[in-house]
């Protein structure tokens, strides 16, 4: 090949790992499609235009925040109160971002920003699974994962907005269950990929109890944050005892 001298092995490996990131995203796409579709339906029924839905999914890119935004806008809540609510709901991203940070230490802050800007619960789940077997995560792999999820999300929102006028009952087909099922799968795969099975199960059970307990008296997002802080500390302390 004439160009062989110009293709460094690093570049080839990099391209390959972008595509592998795309491929590793595929199992989550069904979840994105159904949740994004549902979000599009909700946004449409909340009175948003197609252009507004496209902008919302492309700029905000957060399922729970979009459901909240659509619901609160339908009630004519003030912009400030919607923004504050979404701030608290999405504070949990601090924990996701912090948990991934050790694996991107080889990148500049700006390149870390690009990676973090498309971080979601789902891409985090796939990435932390990948991290279990290595010290650092490939930047290109992460972009492949993030961009696939991102484009799929926007497409799903728009599909929901267009078709939502006709399909009013996605629950009948169990489609709304894609999200919890996906988290079940990610949780199981994460635990199985590590070497601390019993401790992980104990931490997971503790987190589940705290999350449910706190969300009954406060809110679901406070429940997730409280459960994460407390159960992770519990895991760290138990590990120290051994």
């Amino acid at each position, binding site marked *: 090949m004439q160009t062989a001298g110009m293709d460094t092995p690093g570049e080839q490996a990099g391209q390959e790992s972008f595509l592998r990131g795309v491929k590793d995203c595929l199992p989550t796409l069904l979840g994105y499609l159904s949740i994004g579709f549902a979000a599009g339906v909700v946004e449409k029924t909340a009175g948003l235009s197609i252009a507004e839905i496209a902008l919302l999914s492309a700029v905000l890119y957060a399922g729970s925040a979009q459901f909240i935004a659509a619901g609160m806008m339908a009630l004519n809540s003030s*912009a400030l109160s919607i923004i504050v609510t*979404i701030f608290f709901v999405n504070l949990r991203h601090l924990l996701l971002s912090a948990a991934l940070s050790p694996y991107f230490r080889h990148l500049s802050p700006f390149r870390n920003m690009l990676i973090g800007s498309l971080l979601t619960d789902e891409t985090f789940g796939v990435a932390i699974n990948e991290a279990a077997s290595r010290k650092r995560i490939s930047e290109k792999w992460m972009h492949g994962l993030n961009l696939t999820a991102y484009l799929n999300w926007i497409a799903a929102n728009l599909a929901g907005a267009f078709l939502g006028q006709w399909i009013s009952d996605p629950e009948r087909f169990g489609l709304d269950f894609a999200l919890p099922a996906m988290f*079940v799968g990610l949780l199981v795969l994460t635990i199985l990929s590590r070497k601390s099975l019993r401790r992980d199960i104990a931490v997971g059970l503790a987190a589940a109890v705290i999350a449910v307990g706190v969300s009954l008296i406060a809110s679901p997002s406070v429940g997730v944050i409280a459960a994460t802080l407390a159960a992770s500390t519990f895991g760290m302390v138990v590990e120290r005892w051994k």
Partner: protein
Amino acid sequence: MEVRSYVLMVIVGAAAVTFIPRVLPLMVLSRFRIPDWGMRWLHYVPVSIMAALVAQELLVKDGSLIPLSRNTGLWAALPAFWVAAKTRSLLAAVITGIVCAMVLRMLL
């Protein structure tokens, strides 16, 4: 196909408060070494978050517990757990969950 200023304000504001927690730890923490206890703490964060999300999705709706007898989601999740552990395939777990949820809702 218009974008109202009220909607635009919500989108821009919400995006800003979502963007900051997403990128800040990655930008800042990647420049510093996290102490050993911090790394061990972070090791348990993913399991904690995902277990918390799963528990809330399956057990809570509108601020109260879903009664066990009517909780089709919880029963549909059990085969999904089993399939995920057996096959180690995310897609297999998701499809199992959706099919079980659909069948249970048709039966109950």
